[in-house]
């Protein structure tokens, strides 16, 4: 390569400096929030004069925060399940059959990815208002599912593409019926794709805020919505601790995802 890092000589330190600066700029806010969540200053003074876990205690004992956390978890789990199951069915249908309008359908499935979320949110809000679905768990789940599904379809579709369908023929001639073939051969072969789809779907739902703001009611809201609405009223370190929890869980799942990716390459 023309620009080989090893041959840059003295320049490489400049490069390292720029890279570090960018990384710090991106990561510092998160470090900052995490530090504040453990600081004992009510007014979010930085650097914190002392350390405490009281904000976490407050967070985990306040029924409003706990409910939001539970709602987030419930919605995310349901979205994950539905997204993987529906994504699998759609990906199978798209991968294994040829029919009129297939590419149109494929494009249609992916539109939520390119559509601005706020547009989707407004449209869904108006629609769900009619159906009485706003402020319900179902509303959240459907909304998040619409955003998560394209990622599932793509991820599972990719792993189906690298899966040799001759394996299905082999299983069939061995005596396995169509469902048994899928269950015993296809699913195990694409399991990493299914895991990846699950993790992505969970994260999408877990971090989603725009759609959720529209879906939320005073009694039913997810963690990101509660952080956002609390932030507008007053600034308390509880927000910092809630945010830190949110980030920590996200990082955990990202690590799991990259771990799976590594596993699949071996």
């Amino acid at each position, binding site marked *: 390569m023309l620009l080989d890092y090893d041959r840059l000589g003295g320049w490489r330190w400049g490069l390292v400096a720029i890279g570090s600066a960018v990384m710090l700029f991106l990561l510092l806010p998160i470090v900052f929030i995490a530090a504040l969540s453990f600081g004992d200053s009510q007014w979010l003074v930085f650097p914190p004069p002392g350390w405490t876990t009281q904000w976490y205690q407050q967070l985990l004992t306040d029924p409003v925060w706990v409910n939001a956390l539970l709602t987030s978890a419930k919605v995310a789990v349901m979205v994950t399940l539905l997204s993987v199951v529906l994504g699998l069915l759609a990906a199978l249908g798209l991968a294994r059959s040829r029919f009129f309008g297939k590419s149109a359908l494929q494009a249609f499935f992916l539109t939520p990815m390119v559509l601005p979320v706020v547009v989707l949110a407004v449209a869904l809000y108006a629609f769900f208002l009619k159906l009485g679905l706003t402020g319900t768990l179902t509303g959240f789940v459907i909304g998040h599912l619409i955003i998560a599904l394209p990622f599932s379809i793509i991820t599972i579709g990719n792993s189906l593409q690298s899966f040799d369908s001759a394996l299905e023929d082999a299983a*069939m001639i*061995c*005596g396995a019926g*169509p469902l048994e073939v899928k269950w*015993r051969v296809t699913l*195990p072969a694409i399991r990493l794709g299914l895991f990846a789809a699950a993790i992505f779907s969970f994260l999408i739902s877990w971090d989603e805020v725009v759609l959720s703001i529209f879906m939320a009611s005073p009694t039913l809201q997810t963690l990101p919505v509660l952080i956002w609405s609390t932030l507008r009223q007053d600034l308390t370190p509880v927000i910092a601790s809630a945010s830190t929890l949110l980030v920590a869980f996200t990082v955990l799942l990202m690590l799991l995802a990259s771990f799976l990716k590594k596993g699949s390459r071996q």
Partner: protein
Amino acid sequence: MTTPFLQIRGLRKTYDQVVAIDQVSLDIKQGEFMTFLGPSGSGKSTTLYIVAGFQEPTEGQVLLNGKSLLDVAPNKRNIGMVFQRYTLFPHLTVGENVAFPLRVRRRPESEVKAKVAKMLELVHLAEYRDRLPGQLSGGQQQRVAIARALAYDPPLLLMDEPLSALDKKLREEIQFELRRIHQETGVTILYVTHDQEEALRLSDRIAVFSQGRIEQVGTGEELYEHPSSRFVAGFIGNSNFLPVKVEQMGGGRARAIFPNGQAVEGDARAFAAGSEGTLMVRPEKMRIRPHAASARGLAVTVRDMTYLGDSMHFAVQTPWEQELAVRMAVGDGQGLCIGSSAVLEWDAQHGHVFA
């Protein structure tokens, strides 16, 4: 008469405008090793896949023991199959791969265990039971695939170029194993290949495919000694094709003349007198003599001689400047050298006249 074990009756398969196979009919005896031999795209796989059930014929019928196979779903046909590509299930061990068809059939655990052990014994891979397919060589994978395909004692085993991805040495090794397995199990085998040597080595009978049709069915010897068409003659073994004009037909023999006016005789099917044809003679059925003394035979010029250890290879030129290949035992070429004129002879029964 008893009904044949497997009957393939007038199969035809078309894809839109493309005719993949047409009028494919064949009877296969129980325990027979039948090979489909033919060039790429000649319809071998299509025929096999129709028997397997992956494809439906446009026309025709397939009967096993007199009962239609086409009405049976592929997973209920109880047929074994080995594919060209490696199709072991990557997430299952070798043992579990072989057990797969038995588990699907809900056989008791004790039977599964015993059968897996027996099948792995059959393909000499007993000590590989707990490995994953990814940890096996291509040849080992195909042997496991054979074990898996035979685990449920299918009456019929289909193989679609199972050895084409392997190198020559490994291929010969597994061909040898296949013969042994065929003898030990007595399973009827339908085998697809485009390698004539492989076909001759393995098969009881060979069906030669060309452009979606069966050109000829017979033992290797029949196909080699009595090819029914120029295509079969050219596809199996080496051959010389000489242009002739047929003069007279009678009793399965034709009298014909070469471009230089010399007369010749050969085996022939029905022929219209006066039509153009081709006389085929195998290189090793021809003899060259040094002198033009003998009246019989074709006057030729030796163009090239090659010593091949067990035989001598000659290139000779006919009066009409066609180059022919001749193969003789090393001692028989005495007194010949490049450029010398000679006489080319063969026994009349080794000449075959084709359209």
